[in-house]
């Protein structure tokens, strides 16, 4: 082998380790999942939108409009009761109930815009959730064109501005059981997406920064050979673990507060520039809600730190510690991406389970869930986070009492297993027994 080949072989062997490959594989898996989810949305865009239709005008123009809408959509209700129509649309995953009220035709013929009342069934506030609703907007364009053509042929004296744009829309959005009159889902989605992006971003930044502090602290202790001295001092291993975790948590919370202040300014500027006030629709969080978000954030931070402590136990030096932060980074990024793209309630069951299982998801989702009254989901998340913290801290303390803390490796019989961590836990349990 040539000299350069020898160096290449050494470099590849050094760089291509499980710790570099696993994060890449996880990221590939996440992209595959998001891609799979996005392809579902694409398929739904290719299909005809599902709507309900009520014609209360029964005029030539309203019939023309209904015919056009029926041709370009799948109509699941075509009756006269708004209440029944809404129920059918909701139960059969329809996108909207379109009502053409009495006076539609006479308004247009008297040179006023004809009103179309749309009850939007909004299911999620994510970017992907609002995409199917845009197909309904496409239907309205086609309907307007049909009416315009009819007006030009049968009623040439109609005001040209009405011919060009014969209808106006009255929006009512129904989202998570809340009826919001005069507002379209796209407007709600754009305002909510600001939160859906910024809150998870703050959570991710705090978790990654605080988490990497714990792991690099462990890596530094090992590299600088200070850990051995610390472990022989008259202080319990539990106290060392908690001391390190609480120290990092304090720094993490300080960082969170700094980010929150910046976020507060960001939100206030966004809200002042926004055309809608979410508070008018009851979409606000009270003091108790903010406390719950705070608890959820604190527990997620503590869970991240405890996980990082476990990972830190396996590090041998500062360089290895840098690589060890990757799993935590990905665990934080996965829910962030999912939340930006989609609402928890509209996710497939498998994705919902994944989201719930990742403790960092809960503070990311908490604000929106509280706004829409899903307090039980927030409380369940907090309960899960608390259990996760207790379990991870127990594992961290147990590992801190084991040789692995200094050797940084699992004994060889466990390493041969396909699931080394599982083998190690099994080993710990059997030793305890």
């Amino acid at each position, binding site marked *: 082998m040539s000299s350069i080949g020898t160096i290449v072989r050494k470099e590849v062997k050094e760089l291509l380790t499980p710790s570099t490959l696993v994060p890449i594989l996880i990221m590939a898996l996440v992209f595959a999942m998001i891609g799979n989810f996005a392809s579902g949305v694409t398929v739904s865009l290719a299909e005809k939108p599902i709507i309900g239709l009520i014609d209360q005008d029964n005029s030539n123009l309203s019939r023309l409009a209904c015919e056009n809408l029926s041709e370009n959509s799948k109509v699941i209700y075509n009756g006269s009761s708004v209440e029944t129509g809404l129920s059918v649309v909701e139960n059969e995953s329809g996108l909207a109930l379109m009502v053409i009220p009495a006076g539609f035709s006479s308004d247009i013929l008297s040179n006023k815009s004809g009103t179309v009342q749309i009850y939007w069934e909004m299911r999620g506030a994510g970017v992907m959730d609002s995409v199917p609703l845009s197909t309904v907007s496409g239907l309205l364009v086609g309907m307007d064109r049909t009416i315009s053509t009819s007006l030009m042929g049968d009623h040439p004296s109609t005001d040209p501005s009405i011919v060009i744009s014969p209808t106006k829309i009255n929006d009512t959005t129904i989202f998570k059981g809340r009826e919001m009159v005069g507002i379209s889902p796209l407007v709600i989605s754009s305002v909510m997406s600001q939160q859906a992006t910024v809150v998870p971003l703050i959570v991710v930044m705090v978790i990654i920064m605080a988490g990497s502090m714990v792991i690099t602290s462990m890596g530094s202790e090992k590299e*600088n*050979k*200070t850990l*051995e*001295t610390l472990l*022989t001092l008259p202080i319990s291993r539990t106290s060392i673990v908690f001391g390190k975790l609480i120290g990092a948590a304090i720094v993490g919370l300080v960082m969170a507060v700094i980010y929150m202040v910046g976020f507060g300014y960001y939100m206030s500027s966004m809200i002042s520039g926004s055309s809608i006030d979410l508070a008018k629709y009851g979409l606000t969080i009270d003091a108790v809600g903010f406390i719950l978000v705070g608890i959820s954030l604190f527990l997620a931070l503590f869970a991240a730190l405890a996980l990082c402590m476990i990972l830190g136990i396996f590090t041998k030096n500062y360089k290895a510690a840098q690589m060890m932060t990757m799993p935590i980074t990905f665990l934080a990024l996965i829910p962030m991406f999912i939340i930006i793209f989609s609402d928890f309630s509209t996710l497939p069951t498998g994705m919902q389970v994944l989201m719930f299982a990742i403790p960092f998801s809960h503070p990311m989702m908490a604000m929106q869930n509280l706004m829409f009254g899903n307090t039980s989901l927030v409380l369940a998340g907090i309960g899960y986070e608390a259990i996760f913290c207790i379990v991870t801290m127990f594992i961290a303390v147990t590992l801190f009492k*084991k040789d692995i803390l200094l050797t940084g490796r699992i004994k*060889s*019989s466990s390493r041969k297993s396909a699931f080394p961590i599982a083998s190690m836990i099994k080993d710990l349990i059997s030793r305890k027994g």
Partner: protein
Amino acid sequence: MFAVEINDLVKSYGPFKAVKGISFSVSEEEVFGLIGPNGAGKTTTLRVLSTLIEVTSGKVTIFGHDLVKEASEVRKVISYLPEDAGAYKNMTGREYLKFISRFFHDLQDSNAMVDKAIAIAQLGERIDDKIDTYSKGMARKLLVARALMIGPKLAILDEPTSGLDVLNAQEIRKVIKKTVSEGTSVLLSSHNMLEVELMCDRIALIDDGLIIESGTPIELKRKYNATNIEEVFVGAVR
């Protein structure tokens, strides 16, 4: 009461046995030397005695405290100086000593411990400089001072004069001897056979996880017809 009493100590890492069943004891106010070739099991033994790593089998007591069941009590009476120990580089020497002394504040006066350590370290004004700026020798003196400042009942010293020049090494040996005269027992490991001969009341020679020889320096030299411990070492290991 023995300072250290070890009976059939075994330490394994998975299938690898680093220590294969050793037994020895260290008396109070005795300096006991553990010597042997690289990888013989010296540091593993010292790490076990320091409560750093688990006992696979066997029984170890330190001043009557069972090492496994009463590890927290053991940590109150020992002080361990690892061979390649480091200190927190972002602290000054004084801050580091204060930091360590706080763990013993229930047992002793922190300020007195720090003053004692500063006297042992003899770093002058550099005690208030960041440890990051210390030479290897200065850092080692600080760490020896840290280990001895608490007046431990048992000092476990792995290569205590590693990285020190002849003068500083001699100074540290004097400090260790003085600490022994004040009631500390010492278990030390060293590759410096002159140091072992000068310091130790008794010596155990460990090879491949087993103790192959033990006795006073005079007894061992007589047995191997050697003029110094280095010749004893070579004779016993070969």
